């Protein structure tokens, strides 16, 4: 028995000593970093802060991004059901018909992308505030934060204002603010930082001019946001840009949208895209017919969906060269040979011809509808993204803000002068057509509102009754497919009062989107927007 005990004792000792050395369960990842690995080097800080800018690419052209959110609920662009799909559970139809709810994907995408960026912004602002010799970096980031809040103000209104930079405070839950509070926050932040901000134009970065554009936009839409007009304040902001910014209109409108558009003198604030280094800009694939791959030598077939609403196209002057932002008519391969339809068996031997006429949101043929070609499509792209930068604010926008404010203040002729300036490059063949008068700007819109199906107006509402409708038309020509339209339609009172294509008005509360459901689920402090 004694031997047994000793043997067991020795064995147990052996076992225990072995085991105790093997109970360490800490993790040390090798292909990702944890918060402990980050440190505080300038390189790491720059890399950590960089998403505040790079997020803009995703915000704009990530799937169901900002572009879609602003355009697909408008009277310019629609994504109708086609033979190759695009029903997608009704998400595009809901955008067109204004029947979205808190589950709608596009507003949800904007919310999450913006708040992710805000999170990083707040943290970066906190970090840089505690450091010395960072120049105007803190102000730059605060202005950028105000820009993001402007997107939220415009699309959701009642959002939580969060400036908390300590992300370790897990118990903290944001409270919902009113639209007026968000307005006030953006205004006070920008007024505070603008005097300090750099005037230097570093491509793609926030500076004094970009910050003034944000503030001008906020004032321009103040009547919508807070029920007060702020025309003079808006003019004050753009006047500084016009006088001191050193910007000018490109002589060629198209120069703003070419692949190498970073040298444009018209760009005030641009989102920097690159086919391989940023990705996301796959709008050409979303709009073009698959056969158009041969036209642009694309390395992957387009998916063929979004197109122009015919009623908008009808408002153009036929000599307006800005009509060329729409890809239309018979289509040819890069070698000049025709390209064909491919979805309808009866049409496969018929050359692809993008027609103005479309069916309706529920049924549109593969060839129907003008396609969005505002941004030049680079030949021979191998992936499915293009490298054109996206001017979020350009000089023409500053001019048109001034013109609109003047018009609304009763200075129609002064406004007309500016509008004429902006129009001139679009009518190089017939300069007389560029001139508009103050009286004309006070007319209604040429847009023939009403429901439409396959070339036939089912109901007619017209646009004559829209105050300054002609100015709205001008905004359309200049900024079509530049994610302007939703905001402009709301400001001109059209968004929830007129019909176009299959769309009919569906409630005044549609001027803001509902708070996304996943956000409501996660934060009990938030509630639905009014009317939802």
């Amino acid at each position, binding site marked *: 028995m004694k031997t*047994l005990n000793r043997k067991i004792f020795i064995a147990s000792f052996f076992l225990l000593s072995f085991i105790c050395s093997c109970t360490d369960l800490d*993790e040390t990842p090798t*292909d990702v970093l944890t*918060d402990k690995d980050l440190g505080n080097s300038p390189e790491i800080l*720059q890399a950590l802060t*960089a998403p505040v800018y790079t997020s803009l690419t995703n915000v704009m052209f990530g799937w169901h991004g900002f572009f879609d959110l602003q355009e697909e609920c408008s009277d310019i662009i629609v994504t109708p059901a086609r033979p190759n799909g695009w*029903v997608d559970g009704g998400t595009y139809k809901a955008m067109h018909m204004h029947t979205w709810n808190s589950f709608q994907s596009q507003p949800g995408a904007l919310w999450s992308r913006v708040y992710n960026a805000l999170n990083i912004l707040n943290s970066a602002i906190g970090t840089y505030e505690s450091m010395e010799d960072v120049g105007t970096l803190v102000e730059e980031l605060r202005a950028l934060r105000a820009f993001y809040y402007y997107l939220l103000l415009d699309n959701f209104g009642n959002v939580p204002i969060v400036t908390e930079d300590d992300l370790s405070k897990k118990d903290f839950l944001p409270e919902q603010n009113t639209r007026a509070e968000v307005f006030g926050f953006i205004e006070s932040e920008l007024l505070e930082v603008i005097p300090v901000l750099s005037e230097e134009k570093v491509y793609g970065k926030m500076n004094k001019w970009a910050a003034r554009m944000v503030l001008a936009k906020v004032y321009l839409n103040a009547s919508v946001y807070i029920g007060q007009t702020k025309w003079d304040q808006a003019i004050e902001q753009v006047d500084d840009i016009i006088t001191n910014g050193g910007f000018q209109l490109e002589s060629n409108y198209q120069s703003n949208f070419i692949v190498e558009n970073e040298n444009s003198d018209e760009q005030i604030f641009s989102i920097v895209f690159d086919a391989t280094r940023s990705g996301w800009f796959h709008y050409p694939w979303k709009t073009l017919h698959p056969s158009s791959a041969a036209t642009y030598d694309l390395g992957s077939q387009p998916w063929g969906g979004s197109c122009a609403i015919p009623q908008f196209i009808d408002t153009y002057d036929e000599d307006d060269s800005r009509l060329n932002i729409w890809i239309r008519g018979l289509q040819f391969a890069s070698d000049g040979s025709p390209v064909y339809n491919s979805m309808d068996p009866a049409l496969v031997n018929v050359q692809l011809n993008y027609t103005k006429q479309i069916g309706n949101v529920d049924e549109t043929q593969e060839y129907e509808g003008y396609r969005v070609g505002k941004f030049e499509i680079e030949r021979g792209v191998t992936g499915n993204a293009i490298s054109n930068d996206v001017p979020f604010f350009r000089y023409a926008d500053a001019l048109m803000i001034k013109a609109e404010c003047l018009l609304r203040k009763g200075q129609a002729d002064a406004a007309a002068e500016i509008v004429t300036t902006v129009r001139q490059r679009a009518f190089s063949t017939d300069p007389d057509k560029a001139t508009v008068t103050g009286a004309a700007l006070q007319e209604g819109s040429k847009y023939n509102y009403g429901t439409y199906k396959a070339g036939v107006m089912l109901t007619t509402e017209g646009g004559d009754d829209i105050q300054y409708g002609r100015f709205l038309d001008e905004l359309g020509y200049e900024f079509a497919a530049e994610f302007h339209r939703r905001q402009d339609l709301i400001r001109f009172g059209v968004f929830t009062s007129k019909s176009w294509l299959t769309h009919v008005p569906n409630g005044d509360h549609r001027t803001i989107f509902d708070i996304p459901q996943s956000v409501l689920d996660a934060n009990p402090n938030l509630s639905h927007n009014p009317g939802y």
Partner: protein
Amino acid sequence: MREFFTKKMFRLAFWVLTLIAAKNGYAQQTVNGSVLSETNEGMPGVNIVLKGTTNGTTTDVDGKFVITVPGPESVLVISFVGYGTEEFTVGNQSQIDVRLTPDISSLQEVVVIGYGTQRKQDVTTAVTQVKPNEFVPGAVRNAGELLRGKVAGLTLSTSSGDPDAGVEILLRGITSIYGSSAPLVLIDGYTGDMNSISPNDIESIDVLKDASASAIYGTRGKNGVILITTKKAKAGLQPVVEYSGYVATESFNRKADFMDAGDVRTRIAEGVIDPSYDLGATTDWMDEITRKPVNHFHNISLRGGTSLTQYAANVSYQKADGMFIGSNNEEFKLRMDLTHYIIEDKLKVNFNVLKGLQKYGSFNGWTYRQALIRNPTDAVKDESGDWVEHGDQFQYENPLSLIKEQVYDDKSQWTWLTGSMSYFPVDNLELKIVGSQHQWSNETGTYQTKKHISNVRDGRNGVAYVGNGATTENFLDLTADYTKSFGLHRISGLLGYSYIDYTNSGSSITNFNFPTDNFSYHSIEQGRALREGLAGAGVDSYKSDWKLIGFFGRVGYGFNDKYNLLASVRYEGSSRFGNDNKWGLFPSVSAGWTISKEGFLSDVTAINMLKLRVGYGRTGSISTDPYQSLTRYAYSASQFYFNGTDWVSILQPVANTNPDLGWETNIEYNIGLDFSIVDNRVSGTIDYYDRKLEDLVFDYPVPVPPNLISTTRANAATMTNKGVEISLNIIAVKSDKFEWTTNFNYSLNKNKLKSLSNEKFKVENDFFYAGYTGDPIQMTTHKIEVGKAIGSFYGYKSVGLEEDPDNAGEGTWLIQGANGEVKPIADATEDDRQILGNGLPQWYLAWNNYVKYGNFDMSITMRGAFDYQVLNFQRMFYENPTIVYNRLSTSYDKIDGLTLASPQSYVSYYIEDGDFWKIDNVTIGYNFNRDKMKTFKNARVYIAGSNLATITGYKGIDPEVTRTGLAPGNDDRDKYPTTRTFTLGVNLTF
């Protein structure tokens, strides 16, 4: 050969014995003997040991032995597994004939219960053992298929006909939302999968069904455990060589009925299809991409041993062509096992090596889809010999060019090295240390030539891919095992420690634009795309690791073979758990009462055995990848920041921290009844279980800020599975010539999602969507909702067609709206969706038969799944005359007297009942008479047919579709169709 072998062994044994005897230096006496069985047949391989020494021999093939003993006082101990041990004093006899009688108690079966075995009569948990003679015979792709229909509550389905397809395993229902529901598969105690070893190398498969059985495996036990025990040598076994082999061929048991060229021309003549659709040729695209496969399998094993050294080796080779050209599978596996007693009864060592090689085929669902939808009047090649392509048509590619213009090499290998040492310091106590390393690696290389669509249409000019992945898993187990019987008491105890670490790493390169096709993927640096930084070219590498450490113990107590008690506990921690929740405790307790041993039943002769079992256990599962509990940042591989002059890397948060992240828990109660009646002719098992699955992992929406990311992975959801399993074995006929055994397995499972929230993590809406139709329909297919079972189809309920006012005879879908009203599908909103069925079978039944008549034997396996629905993707996508591509012949069948004019839609019309009854396997074998053969101890030939017939109302190819994950019942349109297999095989024992 055999004679030579035996003689040689005999001579060797003689010399060994002579040497031993010489060393001992005793006076010698030679004894000749023979050992006979109860039926007076010579017994080979019987151990003969000189008592008190390690000297001994074994009987030859005729049961004869020769041994030299010191003198007449010598005692011989004669023993054989399953027989009583006999002792003989030699005396003056020179010829000893011994008759061994079967030992009833030692013959009793033993089941494997994890870190040990248990006498079947002592079992208190829900364990089912399947032995090789019960396995599904014929051509099986992996060990999992051996069990099909054999274990109540264990469903195994291979919904694909791909020769390298794995098997989907579910035990007692879906057990997780985010994670896997698949049971743990252990091979001789170590993590493996159904494909790790040869199906012919298996001694037994034991399925630990309830948590009281699997709790000893802690955080790996939640979904049940399947223990595979390989064939081992036994002490005193004459060398046995076995060969098994077969050749087999396959065919699709059903094909999707797409229009052929004739159908197209008929429709053109009818004016239904535009004449331009006829391109002049006649091509059967499915015929073009498929073939008549020949599959074969060979397995050779060798086992043998003395009382001190035992060895076993198994080598297998299998090759299957697969129905689709290119979908090959080739496997080679070698396992060797060697056990040696350094000091008999004191110190034992074991060495085990497993090597596996596998070459996979290149079946691609996309290629199959292209063959289905391609115009049957189109030619394969044009006059100049180039593949016919139509680059302008969306997602439309010549399937033959996809196969022929692609090089595809994909191979894996695995090596398992295991060594163990057991020390027996006193009787009945075993101290054991086992170390094992499992390495797995994969190499893939592909190349698409300049004639591939990737160049013809997309201008890639040759695309190459090279990828490598490797895993290493290290194991260390220390156990102390004690068993003792005294009087009517039996006790057993186990203490152990287990350590596992796991590393996963790999890399890949994609490049294109090559100067020539000659290099294939073997000179990947020659592609220009990577140099030029073009989209679509890239490199990546990764690495992750985890650790799992457990302490465990088990005690068993039995009294008078009547009352049995078993309790176990495991305390286990994983690196994958959050810092505040690293360790968990997993206890279990179970008890058995053999009622038939009670006095009040002793007079009831009809009842041979009756036992009641109850068990409770708590098990866990790790459903998260490494590092999930940490706040993580990653440098983006696709996004860079333009800082005004340069593009620089960006760091993005990818996960919120969750220090509470832990295991998913199963709390399970099991009550079971085992019985055997009417002279043991009828026996069976009934089990009822109640599983409460808690702490299930889900991605919870959390506010941003303060969080970095809008979801946090956390343990908060709860689900239940309740069910009944009945297994019944009947020896219907048993006579000398004729024998018929039949077996039924029935299982029923009720699943319910109880909650998605706990106090900390909540979802306002108690549902979410899962499953996806894919484009162009782009809708979710399933709704996972609290209070309902997982697997509910959710979409529009179609009620018929509405005639199009513009096109008489054509109609679009009418659906039932949220308030019961009927409306056109164009007006449908998300709120009109409703529950349309459930994709998980409610109950399963299997019926196995085994018939023996003279030298013939026959087995018939049948099984079915009932009360569930299948979403027929092929009909949803292709039974529609509006699509441009080829379509099912049934597309023009009238619905409500109208031709469908709606675009492809997800509506209830395509959801069908999936109930089926399959004649899964029929095997007929012939056993040659043993006494008439010289070379073989055993010889059997058989023919087998698998997947012979399916009785079902389902219109698709096979209603047995995927049952795992959150979208069960989706019959994917690109799924490799299942096949019917015919096999001719032999089993030979030398």
